[in-house]
């Protein structure tokens, strides 16, 4: 027999001002199953909670209803109190008589009546509460980090330094990502590679980190704490155990006309190559799509002949390895639009209209021009350079409404670098707004404008066309007496929009994480869970979630690492027991589930699995659904979906919800 305690809170005046709390408490005491009822000034205060604890003990209460504020406010508080008093915390329900009653209605009998109704409803619910216990899930303390850019590197190092195993997967032949392509970094203008390469080496040498370059995640199954991942190690065609990275192979490779990704297509590389001098690992792979041996079957083979260690092996095949991990950090990075995306700027047909990454390479000491800024078409040093911020970004017509965030800063940097290298050159920047929020960011931009006299023009550029050797940049100066301007430039740099990787969608589908309409991965909550995804155990780091600069990326990477380390802090993790369950009973019924599996489709978390129920002899008797408590987030869509109520949701069970409805509508009594 239920013995329910009802505790009505005045919340100072907040409730008692419009609700006759004494009356509510008095009438509540008459409700069936209610053994004790009281009102008090501040239930959430220490004395208030003590009052509850004592009452539970004294009156041997089996459950309590706290008539106070919203459960979203204090449910936790009062459940703790209940637990302290020795009853299962899930026998505590809150009747929201403040937000939903006293605050929104005037002082009146109706308001008091409503408060009582709400209390009565929750009394009915609590009578049907069941003891719930936190769910424990075992955890494999190894993390998978996808992507070897600065985000992946940072996350991997943090997790590894906390003493956990890390598997780092990078799809290109070297880690380093876009950051390794950058020349200098804002707002300090320190050399990107100088700060990055030590980290890369650290990763390579870290005892807790297993590095797989030239590899991609094939598929992911399992759930938080227990992911099962297949990784494809693409055929390198080079036996790394033998290779010393001497480089004679790529020096001799005859196919030399392959656009160099690292230099943003502004130079060429060979078919067997290491992406850049500081690559980690610093050993070459064969790009089979462009290697004569593979394209013109068996022709060439120079590298094999030249290699002193006999490390070249054309027969190596892709290999799939299987790993078990407890958490996954997604750090797959971003891409940018290229000049061919802009019809108004000539569909990229002009070689001297380049994007930001290409400029980085031009300005980089390790770049194709050795750090001298020369234009691609004829290698001349440009006398006038025009920079266009917001090329594509914040432009509905281009389908990119968002701000790419980093462009304002790197455009200022680019202009600065150009001016530093060519004091007499002219630099113009067309911009919409300057978004330089960030530590010493605005100072940086001001410096470009004031000290390096970069000419900032507030306006857009409608078109660029070539006229006797010059690029005519036609735009508008919206400030002062707004007028159209045309600038004759030698080089134009488009700060093109930051976009999600081409394969972002397929990656998201492999990981079962959601993504926004621009294919950036979606965080679990825009404010309070900016690092987690909707799939428990998978976190996000860096620009795969949204455009970010380096400090932000590193911060988020460390945050993702922290989340992972928290998950690894115990040998098993505990989860809220508000999850769905499919009933099971003794033979010969086993379960009322008919195994139609129509519920599988509606689960956003792939939490509903197939269970084969067999007899002792091992004969298959029936198939039935089973909810994986590790994956279930407790939305209950499957419950409402199930025709014969074989699935139920703990904490919001059919019995509970129905009795709430009934309780609500039963006529009150005096």
């Amino acid at each position: 027999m239920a013995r329910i305690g009802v505790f009505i809170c005045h919340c100072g005046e907040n409730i008692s001002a419009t609700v006759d709390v004494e009356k509510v408490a008095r009438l509540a005491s008459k409700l069936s199953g209610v053994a004790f009822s009281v009102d008090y000034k501040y239930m959430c205060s220490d004395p208030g909670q003590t009052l509850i604890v004592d009452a539970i003990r004294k009156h041997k209460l089996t459950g309590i209803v706290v008539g106070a504020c919203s459960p979203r406010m204090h449910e936790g508080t009062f459940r703790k109190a209940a637990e302290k008093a020795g009853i299962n915390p899930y026998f505590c329900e809150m009747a929201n008589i403040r937000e939903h009653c006293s605050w929104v209605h005037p002082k009146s009998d109706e308001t008091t009546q409503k408060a009582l109704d709400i209390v009565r409803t929750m009394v009915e619910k609590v009578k049907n509460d069941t003891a719930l216990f936190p769910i424990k899930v075992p955890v494999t303390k190894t993390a998978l980090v996808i992507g070897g850019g600065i985000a992946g590197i940072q996350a991997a190092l943090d997790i590894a330094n906390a003493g956990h195993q890390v598997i780092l997967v990078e799809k290109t032949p070297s880690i380093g990502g876009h950051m390794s392509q950058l020349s200098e970094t804002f707002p300090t203008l320190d050399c990107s590679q100088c700060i990055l390469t030590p980290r890369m080496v650290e990763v390579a040498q870290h005892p807790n980190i297993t590095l797989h370059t030239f590899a991609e995640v094939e598929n992911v199954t399992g759930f938080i704490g227990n992911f099962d991942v297949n990784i494809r190690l693409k055929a390198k065609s080079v036996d790394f155990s033998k290779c010393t990275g001497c480089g004679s192979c790529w020096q001799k490779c005859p196919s030399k006309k392959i656009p160099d990704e690292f230099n943003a297509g502004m130079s060429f590389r060979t078919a067997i190559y290491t992406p850049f001098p500081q690559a980690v690992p610093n050993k070459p792979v064969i790009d089979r799509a462009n290697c004569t041996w593979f394209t013109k079957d068996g022709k060439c083979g120079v590298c094999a002949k030249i290699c002193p260690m006999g490390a070249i092996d054309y027969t190596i095949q892709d290999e799939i390895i299987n790993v078990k991990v407890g958490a996954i950090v997604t750090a797959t990075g971003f891409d940018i639009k290229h000049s061919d995306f802009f019809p108004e700027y000539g569909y990229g047909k002009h070689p001297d209209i380049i994007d930001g990454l290409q400029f980085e390479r031009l300005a980089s000491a390790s770049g194709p021009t050795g750090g001298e800024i020369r234009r691609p078409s004829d290698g001349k040093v440009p006398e006038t350079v025009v920079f266009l911020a917001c090329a594509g970004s914040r432009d509905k017509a281009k389908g990119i409404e968002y701000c790419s965030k980093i462009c304002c800063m790197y455009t200022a940097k680019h202009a600065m670098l150009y001016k530093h290298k060519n004091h007499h050159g002219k630099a113009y920047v067309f911009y919409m707004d300057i978004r330089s929020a960030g530590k010493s960011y605005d100072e940086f931009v001001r410096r470009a404008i004031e000290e390096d006299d970069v000419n900032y023009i507030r306006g857009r550029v409608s078109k660029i066309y070539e006229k006797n050797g010059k690029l005519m940049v036609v735009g508008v100066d919206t400030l002062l007496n707004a007028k159209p301007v045309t600038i004759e430039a030698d080089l134009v740099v488009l700060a093109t929009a930051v976009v999600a990787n081409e394969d972002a969608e397929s990656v998201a589908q492999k990981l079962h994480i959601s993504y926004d309409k621009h294919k950036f991965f979606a965080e679990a909550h825009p404010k309070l869970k900016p690092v987690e995804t909707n799939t428990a155990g998978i976190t996000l780091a860096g620009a795969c979630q949204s455009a970010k600069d380096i400090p932000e990326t590193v911060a988020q990477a460390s945050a993702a690492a922290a989340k992972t380390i928290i998950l690894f802090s115990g040998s098993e993790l505990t989860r809220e027991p508000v999850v769905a369950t499919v009933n099971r009973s003794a033979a010969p019924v086993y379960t009322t589930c008919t195994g139609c599996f129509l519920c599988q489709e509606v689960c956003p978390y792939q939490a509903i699995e197939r269970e084969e129920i067999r007899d002792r002899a091992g004969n298959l008797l029936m198939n039935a659904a089973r909810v994986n408590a590790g994956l279930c987030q407790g939305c209950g869509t499957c419950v409402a979906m199930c025709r014969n109520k074989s699935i139920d949701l703990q904490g919001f069970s059919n019995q509970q919800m129905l009795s709430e409805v009934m309780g609500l509508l039963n006529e009150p009594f005096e």
Partner: protein
Amino acid sequence: MKELQNKAAELLENGTINLLIGFCEDGSKRAVPCFIETAAEANTLVFNQDCKNNLSVYLHKKEVKDAVKIGLVANVATLRSVLQLLSENQLWSLTLTYLTVNGAGELVVLSSAEELEGYVQANFPTCRPEDQEMLDKLNAMSREERWAFWKDQLSECVKCYACRAVCPMCYCTVCTTECNQPQWIKTSAETSGNFEYHTMRAMHLAGRCINCGECGRICPAGIPVHLLTAQMNQEIEQEFGGKTGWSLKGGYALNSFKPGDKENFIK
């Protein structure tokens, strides 16, 4: 007819099937379901216009399931229900062979799910004219008239659950009507409870019912309950597309969605 009998005999003979569910005539020459286990009995088989029963409903019965290799004499409606059942992961333990007679009056034997799917899609039935007529009539009525109609009809319901028993899609071992914790459906047969039951039944069958019409035909009180699901199916097909009992892949309208689904009824 002879052809059918011979084929049945042959299948039973060569062990393709251990049990044949079909029709034979009872004393008063009415076609009734029969279960044939030996080739010898095959000559009692009949298959004609008044073989209306949807025999697929028997496939849920344990004693039938035990035969494992089963032949089914079926009209298109029945075949549709088998298709739907397969798409809902039922009948997994059975090996089925289907005997039917096509429009040209020739015997057709289907021995695989794929063949079944092909045949059903090629001979897909449309809504029975008499049903369509009723639906149109009801839809033309005013809200109050419809309410009066169903009130009147459902007050006749005695909750015998024949409509449930005869429905191949109602294969739940325990039905919500039998749930008593909580008690979802009033056990007594008063009209409000009947309304409750038939609403639930229609909701559970909406987008799954294959419109064989058995529930309506069987109802001792003569309530046209089959119209509820028929109407629902039409609306669902219109709103979300997809036919019931059409393919092995299924495609249940109520466990899927499109972000752009109709929501003009939502404030």
